[in-house]
């Protein structure tokens, strides 16, 4: 063997790709180390055998066909092909065969470079699976998603939810620039998207209201996220748009607040019925009595009739006062009618609706109201809502308590006036006291509370630049404290 031949053989045998060389009849002549590793045969085992043993039986015909054009046309440049290989142990694997033909002086040989495609196949398949899953996710997501590519923001993808929101079909979007698809929105959206691309800073959770062309009469509330996906090639820089329609949610939230108010009414309704029926009972008795006097006496006792009519008027006033207080549950809009009020008056007013219920439940109410407190500047109906809510919660906390004591205190400290509502209930565990102002958090039984009362109260007091705090010692009741700044 010449030095050149030796060098060539060393190179072939050590190459990292599997190399096989066979003659025109398919007899293997060369089988390098990488081929040994790939097929599990040693060089000496296969030399002289047909190359077919390396190919899965099913594919053998294909392989021979594959060789044919080489043999017939004498083409020299290799062509690639995918086949299924078979190892010595019989296991199969996908392979890529790059075959080239060389005509020597007295024979033609074929050189094949074989690559194992297993990993490629796997990652290809994984990619296809991910794409398929992604399709399913996008299609079914109740949230609008679009991918906009390039400087003109062409729609690369858009899902059904966002297409619906735009009032168009998915096909109406694909491949077309944003400005063409949504001409009404281009002034508003495109500068924002440019900014997202230029700065690389996403827009996260932006709430806005917009009138869409398919429904110009009513605005929809949307929340959007615009996330840049940069690319070296600016033509391929993209923005992923995520849009959620929160219109229904906003409606549902305000309905929930309403239902929280209704639940509060339900809780004190029996007390209210009693409180109103009491004066109504008297009004009816006095009216019947008066009628009887007028029927029975020709020259009737004017004083008696007048007494009865007075009592009727007092009874009507009593019932009216209670009904008037129900407006704290019926006012939806925030009128922000701020005025200076005496907080003690407000505390007493807050008891109007609950007084009877507390009496029915035998709650011992103690009022320790400091005298001559400075006035506070507030929307008193809303502050009454808060105090009523605290009193109502205290009442609930005392329902199963042996000692039913409720203390309401008012006092001044520095520039603030404080109202404390303290019950002798079992208290709120330390672990959850921090959560009592969270929306939907409740310590009450299912169906007893919406978990919104305190969270609404908290925001009302905040709007008044005051504070609402909770203190509780396990087993020793709960104390809620409102502070409000003194009116200047």
């Amino acid at each position: 063997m010449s030095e050149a031949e030796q060098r060539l053989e060393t190179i072939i045998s050590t190459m990292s790709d599997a190399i096989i060389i066979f003659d025109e009849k398919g007899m293997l002549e060369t089988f390098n180390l990488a081929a040994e590793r790939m097929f599990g045969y040693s060089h000496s085992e296969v030399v002289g055998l047909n190359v077919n043993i390396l190919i899965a039986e099913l594919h053998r015909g294909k392989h021979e066909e594959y060789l044919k054009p080489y043999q017939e046309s004498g083409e020299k440049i290799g062509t690639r092909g995918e086949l299924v290989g078979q190892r010595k142990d019989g296991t199969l694997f996908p392979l890529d065969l790059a075959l080239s033909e060389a005509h020597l002086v007295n024979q033609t040989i074929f050189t094949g470079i074989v690559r194992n495609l297993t990993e490629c196949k796997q990652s290809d398949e994984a990619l296809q699976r991910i794409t398929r899953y992604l399709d399913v996710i996008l299609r079914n997501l109740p949230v609008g998603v679009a991918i906009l590519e390039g400087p003109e923001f062409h729609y690369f993808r858009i899902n059904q939810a966002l297409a619906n929101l735009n009032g168009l079909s998915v096909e109406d979007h694909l491949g077309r620039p944003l400005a063409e698809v949504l001409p009404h929105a281009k002034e508003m959206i495109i500068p924002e998207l440019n900014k997202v691309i230029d700065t690389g800073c996403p827009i996260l959770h932006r709430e806005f209201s917009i009138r869409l062309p398919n429904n110009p009469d009513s605005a929809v509330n949307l929340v959007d996220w615009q996330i840049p996906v940069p690319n070296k090639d600016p033509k391929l820089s993209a923005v992923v748009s995520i849009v959620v329609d929160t219109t229904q949610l906003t409606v549902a939230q305000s309905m929930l607040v309403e239902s929280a108010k209704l639940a509060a009414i339900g809780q004190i309704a029996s007390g209210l019925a009693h409180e109103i029926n009491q004066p109504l009972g008297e009004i009816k008795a006095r009216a019947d009595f008066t009628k009887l006097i007028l029927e029975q006496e020709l020259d009737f006792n004017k004083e008696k009739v007048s007494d009865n009519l007075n009592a009727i008027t007092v009874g009507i006033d009593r019932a009216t006062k209670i009904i008037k207080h129900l407006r704290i549950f019926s006012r939806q809009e925030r009128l922000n009618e701020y005025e200076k009020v005496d907080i003690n008056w407000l505390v007493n007013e807050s008891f109007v609706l609950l007084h009877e219920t507390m009496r029915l439940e035998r709650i011992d109410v103690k009022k320790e109201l400091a005298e001559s407190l400075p006035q506070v500047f507030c929307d008193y109906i809303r502050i009454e809502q808060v105090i009523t809510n605290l009193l109502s919660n205290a009442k609930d906390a005392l329902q199963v308590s042996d000692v039913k004591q409720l203390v309401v205190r008012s006092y001044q400290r520095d520039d603030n006036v404080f109202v404390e509502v303290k019950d002798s209930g079992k208290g709120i565990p330390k672990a959850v006291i921090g959560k009592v102002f969270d929306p939907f958090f409740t310590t009450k039984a299912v169906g007893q509370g919406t978990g919104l009362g305190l969270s609404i109260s908290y925001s009302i007091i905040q709007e008044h630049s005051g504070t609402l705090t909770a203190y509780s010692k396990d087993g020793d009741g709960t104390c809620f404290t409102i502070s409000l700044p003194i009116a200047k």
Partner: protein
Amino acid sequence: MAKILVIDDDVSFNDSLKQYLEYVGHNVVCAFDGKQGLSLLVQVKPDLVITDIVMPSVDGLQFIMGVKDSITIFPCRIIAMSGGGRIGGANYLEMATALGVDDALEKPFGMAALEKSIETLLA
């Protein structure tokens, strides 16, 4: 005419019943809670008691139970009345009926209904 004990903590309502019933010829004694009602029951020995339910200290239900315990001594009739309050799911008037009152009137009620009830019970 009958001797009637009216028990209601609402002074004004109590007075309106007293005045009416006296006007139509009854002899009326007033109590303002169940405790006072029980002691007047012993003293006055009324033919009929008209009692409210929701009252401080001894309430109407406790009063009714007390009367039923001593019914052999004072075989009086009882009319319960209430403005429809309830504790938990139970209606006061239903509870009073379960305790064995002779009639139950829901406030507001007319004087004709009251008179009819009195007439029936004392016939």
